Structure formats: C-alpha cells, structure tokens
C-alpha cells in the first residue's frame, strides 16, 4: 500500500507570501484592534474593553469630530463616484474608438498623474490655486471670469470639494484603464451582430458595451470606496494635520493621524487612534461586504 506523500512544496511556496503578509499586514491589523481596547492611565496600560469606542461615538466632543470626518469622507467618496468614474468611463469609450488618432498619447497623458506622489500633486495644485502666485486667477482673468475665482482651499464651503476634484484629476486614469481593457475584450462579432440589427454609435455603447463592462464598473466602485476611506495623504499634504479650514477637510485618515500621533501641543493617544482605525476598518469591511454579497452576486454576467 502506498502512503500519501506529504507535499512539502505547497508549504514552501506559500511560506514567503504568508509570512511577509502576516508580518506587515495581518499582525499589525489585529494588534491595532487589540490596542483600541486599552487605555493609558498614570503611565500604565490598562484594559478598558469598548470604553474607547464609547468615547468615540458618544462623548459629544469626540463624536462631533468623528461624524464630521465620516460625513466629509462620504462627500469625498460621492464626488469620486459622480465625477471620477463617469469621466473615466467616457474617456475609455472615446479612447477605444477605432478611428481616434494619437490614442496612445492621450492614454499616457491622462494616466501619468496617477504615478505622481501625493506630495507633488498637493503642492503643485496648491500653487496653481494660490491667490498670490497661482496661475488660476490669471487664467480666469484672461477669459474675463476673474469674479469666479475664490481662494478655494481656504474656504470652508469649497475646500473639501476642491481637494476631491484634485484627487479625481490624479486618479481618473485608473478607471479609464480598467474600463478601456474591458471594452477591448468585447468581441467584434457581438458589435457587428448589433450593427446588423441596427444598433450603432451611441446606442451600441448603451445597449451592448455598458452591460458588458458593468462588472468592471462594480470593481472600480469598490476600489474607489476602499481608497477614499483610507485616504489621508492628499489632505495632509495640502492642508496639514488639522485639515483646515475649521476641520472642513478632515476625513477619517487625518482624524486618526492627529489622534494617534498628536499634533503641536496635543499629545498622541495611540489607544483612541487605534479605536478610530478600528472604526475605519469596520466601515470599509461593511462597505465591501454590502458590495460582495448584495450587489456582485446579483449582477448579471454574460458569457462572451
């Protein structure tokens, strides 16, 4: 009788990825969640259970900041969903047009901002929009629209939307590329069959291509959601840790950073910071679950 050989190679090949991933992702994640259950009293770390979360959600001072950050975060996400993704899809549709010239050039030009660092993007846009040195007031003046200019990044009512649009400018290349790839994978025969039935031009896009790229749009939405709720860099680079003016650009990422590491005279509180990180994790988890079980499983897929 032959004994089953132990297949060592499976473990060996899995090990590097599992070990690295555990060390840099899984362990810190669970350790952060654990840290959220403690508090520091008189230089001693003591277990307080869910007390930090109670403070975060129900203490008026903390709750106000938390809901403000969460609300801003949703607005940040909505702008991306309403502006970035439709523009990305439209660009992809235009780029995939067979008679468009210089398509490769446009594709690269639109994608390049994505590979720039947040610090560069934040700094460059701050300069562009600066009321003192920026080119934005001059350009508006040249077309006689100077009255439209406002110091957008410094006004409570515009700052967050402005930053969201800067982020859209930076990342519009990603949905464009994903949709572009999906559009290219649609077989010619289907489009030709549609043409014979009289479906051409714009209606070919709405009736044939769009249903076929719907799963890609779903994936992009969930990537946008996760990316936006983890966002931090751009706001920090452009507005600093206090996410001014008057916390109008404060999102969960900056709120967590300020709490965890402290700011100016405010001392860092790793335990409350971890509680915010835990709340962020839960929000993202719930969002992803709604998508996975509520939307993706019901989406109609077409066999190409």
């Amino acid at each position: 009788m032959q004994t089953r050989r132990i297949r060592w190679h499976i473990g060996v090949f899995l090990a590097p990825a599992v070990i690295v991933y555990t060390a840099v992702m899984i362990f810190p994640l669970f350790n952060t969640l654990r840290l959220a259950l403690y508090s520091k009293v008189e230089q001693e770390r003591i277990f307080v259970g869910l007390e930090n979360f109670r403070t975060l959600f129900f203490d008026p001072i903390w709750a106000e900041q938390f809901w403000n950050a969460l609300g801003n975060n949703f607005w940040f996400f909505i702008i991306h969903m309403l502006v970035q993704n439709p523009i990305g899809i439209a660009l992809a549709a235009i780029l995939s047009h067979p008679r468009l010239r210089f398509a490769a050039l446009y594709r690269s030009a639109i994608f390049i901002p994505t590979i720039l660092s947040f610090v560069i993007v934040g700094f460059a846009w701050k300069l562009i929009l600066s009321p003192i040195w920026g080119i934005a007031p001059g350009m508006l003046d040249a077309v006689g629209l100077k009255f439209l200019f406002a110091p957008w990044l410094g006004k409570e009512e515009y700052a967050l939307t402005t930053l969201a649009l800067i982020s859209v400018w930076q990342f519009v290349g990603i949905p464009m590329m994903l949709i572009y790839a999906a559009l290219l994978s649609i077989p010619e025969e289907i489009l030709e069959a549609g043409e014979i039935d009289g479906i051409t031009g714009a209606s070919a896009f709405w009736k044939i291509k769009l249903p076929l790229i719907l799963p890609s749009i779903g994936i992009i939405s969930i990537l946008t959601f996760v990316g936006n709720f983890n966002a931090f860099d751009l706001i920090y680079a452009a507005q600093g840790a206090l996410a001014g003016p008057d916390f109008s650009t404060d999102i969960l990422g900056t709120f967590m950073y300020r709490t965890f590491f402290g700011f100016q005279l405010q001392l860092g509180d790793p335990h409350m910071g971890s509680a915010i990180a835990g709340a962020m994790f839960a929000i993202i988890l719930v969002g992803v679950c709604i998508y996975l079980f509520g939307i993706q499983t019901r989406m109609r897929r077409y066999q190409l």
Partner: protein
Amino acid sequence: MIRRTLPLALATTALVATSAAAQDVTLTIESWRNDDLVLWQDKIIPAFEATNPGIQVKFTPSAPAEYNAVLNSKLDAGSAGDLITCRPFDASLALYDAGHLTDLSDLEAMSNFSDVAKSAWQTDDGSASFCVPMASVIHGFIYNKDAFTELGIEVPTTEAEFFAALETIKEDGSYIPMAMGTNDQWEAATMGYNNIGPNYWKGEEGRLALIAGEQKLTDDAWVAPYATLAKWGAYLGDGYEAQTYPDSQNLFTLGRAAVYPAGSWEISGFNAQADFEMGAFKPPVRNAGDTCYISDHTDIGIGMNAASANPEAAREFLAWVASPEFASIFGNALPGFFPLSNTPVEMDDPLAKEFVSWRGECESTIRSTYQILSRGTPNLENETWGASVAAIKGTASPADLGADLQNGLASWYAPQQ
C-alpha cells in the same frame, strides 16, 4: 490598510540601533529647527568640539509640524538621539513623566537660569528640571521702513494709530497693509491672538488667573482680542483665506506688504531675504500710556534622552549649553532667539536689539494656552487656532468663540468647572 502598518514600520527602525566607538563618542541632537542646520554645523558644533575633543555632535532636525509625532515614535521605539530639543511645557513634561528625559536638577550650570526661564521645563511642583532653557521668542510686528517713510506713517504705539496706519496703507494701494494668511491656522493664533492678547489680559496676571480658574475665556479680557482680530481681515491680502505661512513671509520680504505680524524667530530669515530696511514695533497698547505687555515665550530647551548610551558626554554638552559662551554664540548666530541665561548677551543685529529692548519697557509673559491648559481634549491651543481664524474671517462672533472655548476647557479642566 497601509496606515495600520505604520506603527510597525516605525518599530522596525528601532532595530537599526546606533553604535559608537568607546573613545570617540557621537551625540545626536533631535530638533525641529531645520532652518538652523547650517548654523549648528558651522558655528555651534565646531565651538563645542574645539573645547571638548573626543565628542562629536550631529544635529539631525525634522520638520517642525512633524517633530512631536516623529520624536514620540522614535523614543517609544528606542531610536531617538542622545539629546532632545524640548518643546516648552506639556509635550516635554509628558516625555519626562514617561521616563524619556533625565532629571537635570543636579546639573550645576542650571543655576545660570531664572526660575521663570526654567518654568517651561519643570514638573508642576518645580521639583525637577529636565531641560536646559535655550531661548525664547518675542512677538511683535516687523514693518517695511521704506514703505512707512514713503507713505509718511509714524510707527504706531496705540491701537487707534495702528489701524489708522493700516488704513493709510490700504488707501494708497501700493502695498498690502498686512501679510498674514489663515490657511495654516497657527499664525492667526500665535502671531495674532497671542501677540496682541497680553495687552488685554495683562500678561502674567491674566494668564495665571485663567489657570487658577479665577478668570474665564468668556471674560472681556479674553474675548476682546478676537474683536480686534476681526478688524484685521480687511487689511490682509486678496485671498488671504488660502494664503500659507511661507506665502506671507515671501509677500513681506518681496516688499509687497508693509506690516508683518511676527515672532522674533523670523529675523535671520528676513535679514537674508529682504533688501529693504526693516523695523519692529511692539503690540500697540489699547490706550496711550497703558502698561505694555509682550509675549516673551520660552520656546526651546534641550534635554537628555534617558536611554542615551553616552550620558556622560551628553551631560557635558548640556553643561556647555548652559554656559554664557553658548548663550553668546547662539544669541548672535540666531538673532531672534533670545538666550534665557542670566548673563545678558550683547546683540549685534539691530532688529533683534529692538525686539529684546522691549524686555526692559514692558512686562513679559508667555503664550496663554501653553502651560497646563492644553493638557486635555479638546486641546485649547488647537481650538485657539481655529477660533482666531474664525475671528479674522468673521465666520463667528467673538462672544460665541469665547463661549465655545470656555465650554471646551471646562469639559476637562477642574478649576474652570
């Protein structure tokens, strides 16, 4: 997810421990004064190394806004330098309480400093001093002398004269009356509220009364400065809402603005940048003949990392920092950072001389929010930034701002409850 890996990434830097040869000791200084890198490297460190062979000193600053966060992480991870530049008050007190800073009360050279100078780096009961005081900064206004001569404006001493001067500059139109923005928020509080405020709350008298709970932030002395700040908005440049701190510095040094609400730390930078003559005036008093109060804020100290591998060398360096020799080098190398040592230092820089001369004419105080009052959540200093910005922009009334701040403070500070 990436955010969550940060603490671990910081922790791993701890593994990269510094090693030093036994005979040749290297001391590393943590600091937020990255502007001063050249001065430390060219003047201060060589002067120390010349008299102390065998000790090498490295000055390794980080960005001011990140310093506290970076330092705390480094200390927790055990990778911080031997010498720690100390922020005043609670930030450093917390480091001492956490055992990161050594008690320096037994350092003989500490007797070179007055109690006020040491107060920023002592336990509340004054029993332990953990940082050697290095310097203070004085608030006031720097102005463009050429612009003032051109427009025939006298240096204002009262508030009425101050606003009249700003009005004249505004009407003339060739200069922005005052260079300040609200984008970075802290200028509004530091160079605005805490610059003009001491004249209202009578310096130390009001500050200590607030700490004792005898005055409230809703009192006129604490609210009135916001009403005055509200009048500033009209004299700031176009789009000041999005104007950053470096923008303001550049506007002034390029000669496009006439007045700059300042801290004395600007002096060396401005001397290098501006090609017109500058003068300084102290915060104008409310009525002619009033006693003037200035914010002479203890700003920098230096202490020793309790985990330092070279405590002997570090103490030697600190003793030298406390000496008159250092005070003289530092005070003149960094005009605008005024040594706190009991031995007066003769300043060469005319602008620095002007600032330091106010110590003789006015009562000195420190920023109202720094001692004790910024210990809890919400943080009074951070709240004051927002309130000062709101006052300048006119988005909230001074009375409402005072009430908000008082509520926040009273929520955790027992003497105010």
